[in-house]
């Protein structure tokens, strides 16, 4: 018995010693930062670039950027936060702005407030607002999702359309252009994914509207913008200028392979488009179209956009915060690089004075695309995404076949409204 006890004590002491030494090693250097995000060409690439700058000062530290499918990452994060086990969670996680409040409100204490480390007055106020709950701000604001209409200049020129024909047009004008293109060249203007509601979201925000108002009340039935958005969507499908695709890979593959001629999306789509260097000089960007006959409708909107969050349970919390504050929070030069390489339009206001924002881009036929995006960014109407965007999206997507097959828009709106109200109680 005695020998057992003493042996046990000895091994305990050894374990404690080992623990201490491990801890001191970790504290000294050679820590690995784990980051979760979802796009190897875009946010993953910018994170790698940011860390390589941080590494210049901290040569022993490493980063492990784990890339998931976006929906899978969100569901994994939610499942793990709900389980209450913090094992295996990363240090930093990327969260899309639409979902930020859902996570912050559902899992109190899961994310680290960064107010004492980061000067939020240096970031775009709307991005800060999206990550603020009860006076605490939790994110390092990352990219904007300001939208643009990305098109193949060479293929549209075959049908006789130049950049000037796409400036500040309406959706119905775009439909006419698409019909002419189809007649002249037989080509399809746009791919559309019937399992997504991106287009509806772009249209809603372009007119300063959303599924919810500033207080979070459902604003679907009786909302003229929502009705106009669905009607425009129906006209787009009926006009024959779109082709259905299934899933993200097929969607991006459609316009990067030339099967379709254009897409409208957030500025972050630049990374995917630029991933095909052989198409340099064949792309242009115009403002996204505006809704016809809707008060307050403009040519500027937003799609997506996301920010970095530090988990309270992060093993390398100190380092994660230090890294975000020094690189993402102040390195203007870094923001110039990711703008040109990845199309990441950051939220650090000082970065917009940098030279890259003034330059034109040869990939986009020499257009001053970054200056344009910055200008459009300033025009985006602010809306409250609320905490139920996912539920509202699901309700809209459930009605897409009805919209596509020419169903009565008022009935469809009533069905969406009923479902959203039920799901958000």
């Amino acid at each position, binding site marked *: 018995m005695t020998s057992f006890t003493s042996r046990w004590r000895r091994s305990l002491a050894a374990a404690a010693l080992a623990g201490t030494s491990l801890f001191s090693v970790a504290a000294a250097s050679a820590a690995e930062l784990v980051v979760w995000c979802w796009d190897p060409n875009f946010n993953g690439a910018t994170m790698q670039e940011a860390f390589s700058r941080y590494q210049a000062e901290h040569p022993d530290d490493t980063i492990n950027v784990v890339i998931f499918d976006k929906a899978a990452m969100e569901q994994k994060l939610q*499942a793990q936060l*709900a389980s209450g086990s913090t094992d295996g969670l990363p240090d930093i996680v990327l969260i899309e702005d639409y979902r930020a409040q859902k996570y912050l409100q*559902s899992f109190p204490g899961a994310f680290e407030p960064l107010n004492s480390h980061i000067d939020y007055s240096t970031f775009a106020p709307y991005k800060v607002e999206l990550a603020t709950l009860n006076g605490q701000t939790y994110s390092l604001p990352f990219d904007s999702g300001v939208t643009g209409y990305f098109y193949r200049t060479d293929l549209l020129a075959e049908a006789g359309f130049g950049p000037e024909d796409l400036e500040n047009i309406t959706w119905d004008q775009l439909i006419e252009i698409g019909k002419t293109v189809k007649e002249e060249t037989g080509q399809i203007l746009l791919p559309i994914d019937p399992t997504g509601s991106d287009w509806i979201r772009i249209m809603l925000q372009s007119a300063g509207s959303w599924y919810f108002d500033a207080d979070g009340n459902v604003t679907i039935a009786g909302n003229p913008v929502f009705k106009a958005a669905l009607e425009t969507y129906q006209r787009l499908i009926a006009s024959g200028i779109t082709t259905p695709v*299934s899933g993200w890979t097929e969607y991006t593959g459609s316009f990067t392979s030339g099967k379709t001629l254009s897409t409208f999306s957030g500025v972050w789509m630049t990374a995917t488009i630029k991933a095909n260097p052989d198409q340099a000089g064949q792309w242009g960007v115009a403002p996204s179209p505006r809704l016809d006959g809707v008060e307050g409708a403009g040519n500027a909107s937003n799609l997506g956009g996301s920010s970095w969050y530090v988990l309270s349970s992060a093993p390398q919390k100190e380092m994660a915060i230090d890294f975000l504050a020094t690189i993402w929070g102040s390195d203007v030069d870094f923001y110039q690089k990711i703008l040109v390489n990845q199309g990441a339009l950051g939220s650090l206001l000082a970065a917009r004075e940098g030279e890259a924002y003034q330059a034109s881009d040869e990939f986009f036929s020499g257009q001053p695309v970054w200056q344009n995006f910055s200008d459009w960014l300033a025009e985006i109407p602010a809306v409250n995404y609320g*905490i139920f965007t996912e*539920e509202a999206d*699901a309700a809209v997507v459930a009605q897409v*076949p009805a919209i596509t097959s020419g169903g009565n828009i008022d009935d469809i709106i009533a069905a969406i409204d009923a479902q959203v109200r*039920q799901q958000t109680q």
Partner: protein
Amino acid sequence: MVAEVETSGSMQDRRRGGAASNLARSEQINGWLFIMPALVLLGIFMVYPILWSLWMSFQVGRGMNFSFGGFANIIRLTQDPVFIRALSNTLLFLAVQVPIMLMLALLFASALNDSKLWGRGFFRTAIFLPCVTSLVAYSVIFKSIFALDGIANQALLALQLIENPINWLSDPFWARVVVISAITWRWTGYNMIFYLAAMQNIDRSIYEAAKIDGVPTWARFWFITVPMLKPVILFTAVTSTIGTLQLFDEVNLLTNGGPSDATLTLSLYIYNLSFRFMPSFGYAATVSYVIVILVGVLSLIQFLIARDRRR
């Protein structure tokens, strides 16, 4: 028992009886001690979560902020169009897929039970093989087969059976067809193995007697094979019902519940409520108890039907 019978009537009956009951008690204690580890594990990993989820089903609130809501979740069930859709989809899959699959399995089994059939070992393996493949792997393969430019459309176009490619996964009707064929493909062989095993236990002389009496093949199948297989058919019907009610992997990977919620199942809805939407774990637990009740009721009905016919 034996010891008591031997000592009954002896002078020291009371004392001996006491010893026997002591022995019985110590045996009982030992017995409980032996099964205790298993019981503790069962308690922690089965009974406790089941009771906890029952308690959860009466909780309301967003995310980790719970409060007791009484019957609020049950009232919510009755008013939830998505739940109604998920429930009717699940029941539709059940009503269409399980009978088709069990009949196919029975037909395959009786065909492959023929000892004169050439290559029956090969066919048995081939039909059973799908159920050892991973759910994810086969779902992904089905997804690529039924893509707009997938093999299914190419084959049908080449055979001139259709003029335009069918949008399998984006059309509500065809999406259901794909899901049903996928599950049927995977699970038919599994059920067939049960039937095959049971058929080999049927005494051959029964068939010989029927043959001599001039009973035709279909009648031998219908009046001998099927009744003799009744317990196994019941078993496969119950397990298939449970499996279909819990259908998740295939729909999640093939269609993600779409298009237009046409393939949304109860399990997928529970998943969405917990991990995709604003998490409402209480309501998700309520929906999962709907599955529990459905499984219980349907299994009971199947047992009753089988028992009635046995009389």
